């Protein structure tokens, strides 16, 4: 193996006949109602401890604020000063009709658009957390998901700044790192993850990744036809810095508005260059020492 040919842990690698289709999440934020049932179901099923006393953030209805060791699903709430879009309704005509009937009509005016989105671990194809883990605690399951083996993790913390999404975190009172497992235990029993099961609007969809991608493409086309030009799929494709994600999203604005990095890159993509720089620097150390003694002992 050469340094320029570092393998990305492949799906099914090492599982032979036991490899399963890659499973994932498609989170369609256009139908998220911000109920936070996913957050609650995740905590209940996975026995995730509370993340401290409730503090009111003032950031709309979001008092969870971010993914972390004790938050594996996080619902973001974004309030925007722009009209709510009502597809297939001609507001001017409706106003005229309402005026004729003597009632109040909906009007096109400056308004409040409310975006809600349930965030989760992306289970990246090229998962920096997994690739930098020095103990092998982070591993690729037979479902293509990324999971921490809690009996192996020694809390070195390297995965924490390696993750380009800020997902994984050390639980300080425990010392180890924790994150979404995509309900590995439920998957092994043929069940869907708790968050997807609890979602009342099917905003969180679980299934084989290939199938989810087709479903997402169809939904995006429908939204574009209905005039939602801002709708976009985030992390759906494999041609990105993380080689595609096991959890991808349909968003109605730019990713950074939801707290996502707009163009994430797995740090280990650049690891050959990093090692080259370290080797050159080691050569400089050798050369400097040689030069220093070459001048004699005075």
């Amino acid at each position, binding site marked *: 193996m050469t340094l320029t040919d570092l393998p990305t842990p492949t799906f099914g690698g090492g599982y032979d006949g036991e490899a399963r289709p890659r499973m994932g999440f498609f989170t369609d934020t256009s139908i998220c109602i911000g109920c936070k049932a996913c957050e609650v179901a995740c905590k209940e099923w996975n026995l995730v401890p509370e993340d401290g006393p409730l503090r009111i953030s003032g950031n709309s209805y979001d008092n969870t604020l971010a993914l972390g060791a004790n938050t594996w699903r996080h619902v973001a709430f974004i309030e925007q000063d722009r009209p709510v879009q009502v597809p297939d309704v001609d507001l001017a005509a409706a106003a005229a009709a309402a005026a004729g009937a003597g009632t109040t009509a909906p009007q096109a005016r400056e308004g409040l658009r409310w975006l809600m989105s349930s965030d989760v671990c992306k289970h990246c194809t090229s998962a920096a957390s997994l690739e*930098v883990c020095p103990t092998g605690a982070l591993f690729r399951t037979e479902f293509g998901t990324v999971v921490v083996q809690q009996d192996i993790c020694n809390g070195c913390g390297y995965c924490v700044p390696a993750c380009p999404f800020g997902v994984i975190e050390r639980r300080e009172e425990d010392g180890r790192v924790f994150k979404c497992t995509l309900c590995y235990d439920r998957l092994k029993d043929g069940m869907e993850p708790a968050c997807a099961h609890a979602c009342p609007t099917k905003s969180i969809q679980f299934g084989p990744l290939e199938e989810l991608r087709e479903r997402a493409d169809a939904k995006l086309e429908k939204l574009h036809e209905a005039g939602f030009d801002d709708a976009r799929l985030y992390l759906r494709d494999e041609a990105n810095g993380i080689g595609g994600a096991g959890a991808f999203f349909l968003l109605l604005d730019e990713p950074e508005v939801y707290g996502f990095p707009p163009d994430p890159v797995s740090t280990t993509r650049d690891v050959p260059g990093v090692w080259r720089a370290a080797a050159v620097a080691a050569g400089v150390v050798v050369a400097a020492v040689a030069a220093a003694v070459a001048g004699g002992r005075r």
Partner: protein
Amino acid sequence: MTPSQPPAGAASGNGRRRGRVRGSMVPEAEFRSYYGRPILKEPAWTLEVPWYFFAGGLAGASAPLAVAARVTGNQRLASSALTVAGAGIAASVPLLVSDLGRPERFHHMLRVFKPTSPMSMGSWALAAMGPAAVGAAVSDRLGILPGLGRVAEVISGVIGPSLCTYTGALVANTAVPVWHEARRELPLVFAGSALASAGAASTLLTPAADAGPARRLAVTGAVVELAAGQVMERRLGELGEPYHQGVAGRYARLAKGCTATGAAAIGLAGRRRPLAIAGAGLLLAGSAFERLAVYKAGFQSARDPKYVVKPQRERIDAANR
């Protein structure tokens, strides 16, 4: 009605930073975020980590100095450098173990051998160099098993240079912008810092008549550290702001000041011990401040979403053009 662009003058997304006063006409920086909250997590590491970078670098650069001094017949310098290498490594291991969330599982580091993880490779390097450097130093000081001691000395001299540069690779191999975008320069900054500290430490422990190579090494290391640091900051551009702000900024200024004055003092000292000792002390301090500056800059960089969003957005815009 089709989805409309926001009316002129209206905020089009929450968290778009528009100057210190909300509604200011002059935007401070054009990027959008989720309530200005961080995208990345700050490292979970504590101060043991930069002090390990210092101690490991000190040991890593002292080990080859010991071998080189031995080869050129400078036994006193070889002895000093070997002692520094052994002591540096002996300090490194407890620093690293105590930083773990589960210190009793430190040996899990040796379950796998993983080139994508500089921490894995560094653990192996440390596991090999630790016994060698400590053994060689003990053998040299006590005069026991001299043959085995020399073998250990050579082993630690061979591993040493990578031990003082892999730590630069370790922080560069993260998503933290001020570290990742300095991936070409960080190992060299750490190499310079390690050389300066190793030269300084051996200057302190060696009689002036034999310490010439140590003094020269200290000056070379300081020059490499300062030059590589300059290149790094220039290449980072706006991403390098943490080196001029807050705690990281203070450490960076201290590092530059101590390293520059220390190098001048030790360079001019010659065999004048007091000046050489003052210079060596400043260089050791400068080397430690350098690691602390890099360490703290990473936290400041991870905390502000602009360092993540702006370069990534520019990359997307450039690709779309």
